[in-house]
C-alpha cells in the first residue's frame, strides 16, 4: 500500500471517528488537549506504519491503543517507535469497546461542551471541534471570527474543562431541562454550518446526534422538535441545488424529496406537539412541515407560514426569522406588506445580512420598482459567500434585466 493510500485511509478514519476517539481518550482524565495531542501522535504513527504493514482490521481500535499508550507511556524515550510495533498486536487482541459505550462517551463529551460553566458563545464551536472534528479555521470562518481568536478561545474552554473539573458524564435526567437546550443549540449549529458549504458528512452526523438526543430525552418536546426539523430539511437535500443553482423551497421539485423521511419527521413533530409545550425547534419544524405539505396539496400555505413565523419571532427572535417572516408575508399579503415588514426589522448587522437584501429585491421587483430591485440584488450578491446562492442571485438579476428591457 502506498503512503498516499495510507494517508487517505487515516484521514477517512480520522473524520469518521475523531469525536469518538477524543471522547474515549478524554473522558477519564478530563483533559481534551492531552487527548488531542495523543490522537495526533497516533495518526502520525499510522502514517508511518500502515503503508508498511497494511491497514489494521480495526483501524479505530489501533489508533485508540496507540494514543492510550502514547499518553501513559511518557517515560520511554523512543516511545513512538516502540509503541507502533506493539500496537498491531495489541489492537488485534483488544477489541474496541462496543458501539453503545462509544456513543455514551460521545454524549458525555457533548454535555461537557454544553456545560453551563462554559461560555455560551463557545459551546457550539467547541462541540464542532471536539465531537465532530472540525478544524479551528473552518469553525472560525463559519462564525465570522479570526482563526487565531477562535483557536485561543477553544483552548481556553478546554483548559477550563480540565482545571475546573467539569465531569465527563451524561447528567441525571433531572439536569436535562437545564442542560439539554444548549446541547440542542450546538447540534443545530453544527447542522447549519454544514448545510450549504459542507460536503454533508457533518450534517449527517448532526442529524444522527439529534436522533440520539431525542431517544435520550423523549419527554423533551424540543429534543423531538430538533430531530424533526433536521429531518425535514434533510429530506430536501437532493432538491435544494439544481445545476449548481440554489432552488428555494417553494420552487423545488417535490419528486426529489425523501417522502419516508418527511413522514417520519412529521410524526415525531406530532408527538412533540402533543406535550403542549411549544418552543423554537418545534416551531421551526412546523414551518418546514408546512413547506413539506406542498408535496401532497400541490401548493404552499403562506397564511399558515406567516402565523408560524409570528409565533417563532415571539419564542425566539432572530434576524433570520425576521427576514423569512417578511418574505412569507410578501407572498401571503403582497409585496408592499412584505416591504413594510422588512422596514420594521431592527437587528444589528441587518445591512450586511445577505437574505435581507435578497428578499427586499424580490419585493421591490414584484412592485415594479425594478431599478431599486436591481440595486438590492447587487448588494445581496456582494454579500453572498456560497456559490449556489450566488448563481441563484445572478439568475434573479438576469430575470430582472429581461423585465426592464
Amino acid at each position, binding site marked *: 500500500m502506498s503512503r498516499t493510500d495510507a494517508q487517505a485511509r487515516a484521514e477517512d478514519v480520522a473524520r469518521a471517528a475523531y469525536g469518538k476517539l477524543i471522547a474515549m481518550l478524554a473522558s477519564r482524565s478530563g483533559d481534551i488537549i492531552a487527548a488531542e495531542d495523543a490522537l495526533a501522535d497516533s495518526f502520525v504513527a499510522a502514517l508511518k506504519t500502515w503503508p508498511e504493514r497494511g491497514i489494521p482490521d480495526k483501524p479505530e481500535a489501533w489508533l485508540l491503543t496507540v494514543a492510550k499508550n502514547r499518553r501513559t507511556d511518557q517515560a520511554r524515550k523512543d516511545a513512538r517507535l516502540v509503541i507502533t510495533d506493539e500496537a498491531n498486536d495489541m489492537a488485534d487482541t483488544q477489541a474496541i469497546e462496543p458501539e453503545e459505550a462509544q456513543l455514551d462517551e460521545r454524549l458525555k463529551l457533548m454535555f461537557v461542551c454544553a*456545560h*453551563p*460553566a462554559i461560555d455560551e458563545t463557545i459551546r457550539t464551536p467547541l462541540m464542532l471541534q471536539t465531537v465532530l472534528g472540525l478544524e479551528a479555521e473552518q469553525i472560525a470562518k463559519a462564525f465570522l471570527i479570526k482563526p487565531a481568536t477562535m483557536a485561543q478561545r477553544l483552548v481556553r474552554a478546554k483548559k477550563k474543562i480540565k*482545571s*475546573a*473539573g*467539569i*465531569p465527563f*458524564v451524561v*447528567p441525571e435526567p433531572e*439536569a436535562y431541562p437545564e442542560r439539554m437546550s444548549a446541547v440542542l443549540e450546538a447540534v443545530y449549529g453544527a447542522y447549519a454550518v454544514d448545510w450549504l458549504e459542507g460536503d454533508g458528512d457533518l450534517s449527517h452526523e448532526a442529524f444522527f446526534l439529534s436522533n440520539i438526543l431525542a431517544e435520550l430525552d423523549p419527554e423533551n418536546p424540543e429534543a423531538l422538535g430538533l430531530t424533526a426539523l433536521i429531518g425535514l430539511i434533510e429530506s430536501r437535500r437532493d432538491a435544494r441545488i439544481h445545476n449548481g443553482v440554489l432552488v428555494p423551497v417553494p420552487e423545488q421539485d417535490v419528486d426529489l424529496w425523501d417522502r419516508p423521511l418527511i413522514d417520519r419527521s412529521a410524526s415525531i413533530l406530532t408527538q412533540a406537539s402533543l406535550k403542549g409545550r411549544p418552543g423554537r425547534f418545534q416551531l421551526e419544524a412546523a414551518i418546514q412541515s408546512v413547506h413539506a405539505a406542498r408535496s401532497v396539496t400541490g401548493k404552499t400555505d403562506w397564511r399558515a407560514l406567516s402565523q408560524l413565523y409570528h409565533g417563532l419571532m415571539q419564542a425566539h427572535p432572530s434576524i433570520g426569522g425576521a427576514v423569512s417572516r417578511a418574505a412569507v408575508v410578501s407572498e401571503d399579503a403582497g409585496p408592499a406588506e412584505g416591504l413594510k415588514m422588512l422596514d420594521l426589522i431592527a437587528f444589528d448587522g441587518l445591512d450586511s445580512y445577505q437574505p435581507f437584501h435578497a428578499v427586499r429585491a424580490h419585493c421591490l421587483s414584484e412592485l415594479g420598482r425594478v431599478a431599486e430591485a436591481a440595486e438590492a440584488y447587487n448588494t445581496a450578491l456582494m454579500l453572498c459567500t456560497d456559490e449556489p446562492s450566488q448563481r441563484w442571485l445572478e439568475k434573479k438579476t438576469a430575470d430582472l434585466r429581461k423585465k426592464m428591457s
Partner: protein
Amino acid sequence: MRYTFLLYSDPAMAANMTEEDWAKSKEIYGQYIGALQEAGVFVDTDWLHPADTATTITLAGGEKQVQDGPFAETKETLGGFFAIDVENLDEALKWAEKCPHVHYGKLEIRASAMGSV
C-alpha cells in the same frame, strides 16, 4: 477535588441589617455548614470583616508597601469563603446553589490547583 467558594456581595446591604437579621443569617449559615459536614464534604469556612477594614501588603515592587484598604476598590467585595471537597464541578455547583449567600450575592467557584501543577 477541593473547591473554594468565594462569596462576593455589596457591603451596603449588610449595613442595613438589623440585629434580628444577623441572628437569622447565623442560623441559616449554621444549617448549611451542618449539611456540608453531614455529607462529609466540609473543609473550612470563614466570615470576614468588611473590605474597608482590609490591609494590603506587597513586596512585588522591590520594597515593602502597606496600604490601608483592599487591593482594588470594587462595588462587590469578598466577604467570606467556603472550602469543600467533592468529585467534580457539578457536585460543587449543587452545593453552591444551596449556599444562602447566592440569594443576595455572587458566589465564585474555584477549583484547587494544588497537586495539578
